[in-house]
Each structure stands twice: as structure tokens, then as C-alpha cells.
């Protein structure tokens, strides 16, 4: 009746679990910094996937909710240092918004380490690496995000084979003989 799937069981960490973390990085500073880390062949854990946005001011809190809702264990938002924004003021707005939003998420029970915001400049390849390393370790220590997500749509009852599946396509629907 109720579509709630309580997720108590997820408290046990599955074997081979690796934290999945999304990092929203501004194009001008942090993304550049991350590229620099690559040029310098720095090494950091691969759990973070970078999503490029033009500016941390573009960071809509709704993306964070989506990421947490749909399966990320942690979210990192990075931008230029305040004062260095390519677009002058974007990160000042982002700073305010993210401060409020982070508190709200924590209020709703999200562990603080799962949502982090950092200013990383285009030169701070080392800071990028260190941030990624620490976020991954912190989230790893917390384990999988224990959030009730959604009904497990995709777990199906016994799946018929390809051939049978097509048999399941309904018969053509033919209208009755047309009357005048």
C-alpha cells in the first residue's frame, strides 16, 4: 500500500562498496585546478566524478538533492575563491546559498561530510587532490548513504527471455465492424 521502502538494511556496508561522489566544479578555477592536477600527474582516488558548471553561482541546490536522491554518497561543490570569481560575484551568492543549504541538509539528517563546499583556484592542483582525498575518505568512513530512495522499480519478477517477451506484446486491437 505504501510505497516506502525503508532502507534500514543498507546500514551494512556491502562488499566492494566504493563511495560514489559527484563534484560540481566551476569551469574557471576548480576545473582548471583539476586539469592541473592531471598535468602534474598527481594521484587521487577515482571515486569523484567531476561535473563542469560555468560558475559556482550556477550551482542550483536542486542538483544536490537529485544527486543524493538518485544514488550519490556524497556531493562536493567547488568554485573560485571569493574575490576571484571569473564572473565577479557568482561565488559570493553561492557561498550564502550553500551555507544555508548545507545546514538544511544536515538538519534533515545528512552527515556534514557528505556535502562539502570548497574554494579551489586554478593553481591549487594540490588542494584539489587533497580535497578529493579527504572527501572520499570521510564518505568512505560514513559508509553508503542511508537514504530512502524510491520504489525499486527495476527489480522485476522472473524475466522472460527475449523471445517470450515479445509474445507478451498485446494482440492488435481491432475495432468492431463499422456500423453505418
Amino acid at each position, binding site marked *: 500500500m505504501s*510505497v516506502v521502502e525503508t532502507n534500514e538494511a543498507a546500514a551494512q556496508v556491502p562488499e566492494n562498496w566504493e563511495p560514489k561522489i559527484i563534484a560540481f566544479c566551476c569551469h574557471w578555477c576548480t576545473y582548471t585546478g583539476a586539469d592541473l592536477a592531471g598535468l602534474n600527474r598527481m594521484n587521487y582516488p577515482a571515486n569523484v566524478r567531476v561535473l563542469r558548471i560555468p560558475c559556482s553561482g550556477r550551482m542550483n541546490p536542486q542538483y544536490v538533492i*537529485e544527486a543524493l536522491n*538518485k544514488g550519490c554518497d556524497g556531493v562536493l561543490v567547488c568554485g573560485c575563491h571569493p574575490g576571484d570569481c571569473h564572473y565577479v560575484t557568482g561565488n559570493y551568492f553561492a557561498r550564502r546559498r550553500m*551555507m*544555508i543549504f548545507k545546514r538544511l541538509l544536515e*538538519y*534533515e539528517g*545528512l552527515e556534514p561530510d557528505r556535502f562539502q563546499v570548497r574554494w579551489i583556484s586554478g593553481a591549487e592542483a594540490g588542494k584539489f587532490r587533497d580535497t578529493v582525498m579527504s572527501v572520499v575518505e570521510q564518505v568512505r568512513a560514513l559508509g553508503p548513504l542511508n537514504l530512502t*530512495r524510491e520504489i525499486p522499480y527495476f527489480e522485476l519478477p522472473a524475466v522472460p527471455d527475449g523471445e517470450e517477451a515479445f509474445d507478451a506484446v498485446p494482440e492488435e486491437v481491432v475495432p468492431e465492424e463499422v456500423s453505418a
Partner: protein
Amino acid sequence: MTAQDTIRARARELLESGEVASFVGWEAGRFANQTTPLIISDPADADKLVFNEYCVNTLAKYVRDLVPRGKVGLVVRGCDSRGIVRLIVDQVIKREDVYLIGVGCPGVIDRKSGEPLKKCTECRHNNPVICDEMAGDEVAKDAPADRFAEVREVELMAQPERSRYFESIYAKCIRCYACRDVCPCCTCRECFVDARRENWVGKQNNVAENRFYGLTRVMHIGDRCIECGECERVCPMDLPLMKLNRKVIQDLNDLFGEFESSMSLDEGPEPLITYDLADREEFM
């Protein structure tokens, strides 16, 4: 003359003189001590207006739909008037679109329990913040000792407990959107939940989608919330929505200076669409 008499008399005058095209107040409902919003355009209906301690509905939101018909008169208490300020600041209406009859509000009583309504015990501004005239005097009322008591209560819970608490809220939500539709801050032409292209919120009713709606709603109204408490009152599932709204307000208050939205028409920009170079830095 009681406030109710004044309201009736003035409503009649305003409608008769053509100063306003419609007038918004309350009328008695079917059941004992029940009231319901009343919108009239015929001066003869003025005697249907009531004002008593059972007028639960705030009226500001109605103005939006009525303004195209001409100037709107309405009765405003503290909460209604802040709703009007909100609508004016958000450019939904103009100040000259409304004629406001202020009335001091001693707080509304729940007709079933006979106790004061929660939203009224938490109210800090029971007298109108703007109006064109007053029906009766302002009413003195004790402001709640701690505006954020219920927020702190939740904050004191352990993290997993808080998580469970809010999940149970989202599990109960049926997404009827009454909280949105009653809110004077929610004036979008189309709510983000209806945006099919972005598909922010899936149509399914489940904890995750409801959480998306719930959190986003708070982020959208947080720095504009007038703290009328109507969202919480109208919720058919009795979800404690003000605990979310007030959390954001508390943080805005703590971080960016004393904050109470919609107290006057010439407030600066809301805290989240402005910044200060001296804002606290916690993301280094």
C-alpha cells in the same frame, strides 16, 4: 463598535463608493465556530462578513486573483499584511491595488480543541505591518519567548533520529501542494514541480520525490517566508512544515543578520539574492 462592525461598515462603503471592486474577509462556515474566506463584490453582502477568534485563513493570496478585476479591499492582521507586503515586493501586485483594513489579532482558536492555534502562539506580529486604516485598536499580545524553539528541538536529536524523523514526514506527504497553494511566497506562474522538461520532481509519490519537493520548497521560500504558518495548518497530513521553514530563517538570522521577511515595503533584497564581502567564510 466592534472590529466586526467596522469591517462590515467600511466594506459596504468601499464597495458602494466603487473604491474597491471586491472585498476579502471571512464569513461563518457551516459548523459551529467555523469560518471560511469570503470574497464579495456586492455591498449588500457586507453583513456576511465576520471577524472573530476563529478566522483561521490568511487572506493575502486571494488578492492575486482578484486584482485584475480592480482594486481589492481586505482585512489584514499581522500575517495577512505581511503576505500583502510579500506580494508587493515580489511585484505580483502593486500597493495601490489593495485597500487594507487593519485589525489587531489576539490569535486564533482551533475550533475543535478550543486551544489557540499553533501558528498563532508562534506569531510575533499580530498587528498589521501595513494598512490604510485600522478597524479598532492594535492588540497587545505576548510574543513567543523563543522563535526557534521547535527548530532547536529537532537540532538536538541525534543525526540518525533526525534522518528518520524527516523521512517519516516525506513518507506521509501526499503532494497535494496545499502548502504551496496557500503560501503568499509561492507565486510562480508554473511551479518547478510541473516542469516536465527538467523533470525536477518525478510524478511518483515516494519518499525521494517528496524530499525533493520538500527541500526545494523550503529553499525557494526560505528567505521570503512570512512565517504565517498556513502551510502547516492546511497540510492534510499535519506535517510540521514550519520546522523546515524556520530552520532556514534561523540560519539566515544567525549568519547574515537579524532577519524577518516582509515587514515593510522598502526592505533591501532578500538575503539569498545579495551578499556581503564580509560574509562568514567556512568553505576554505
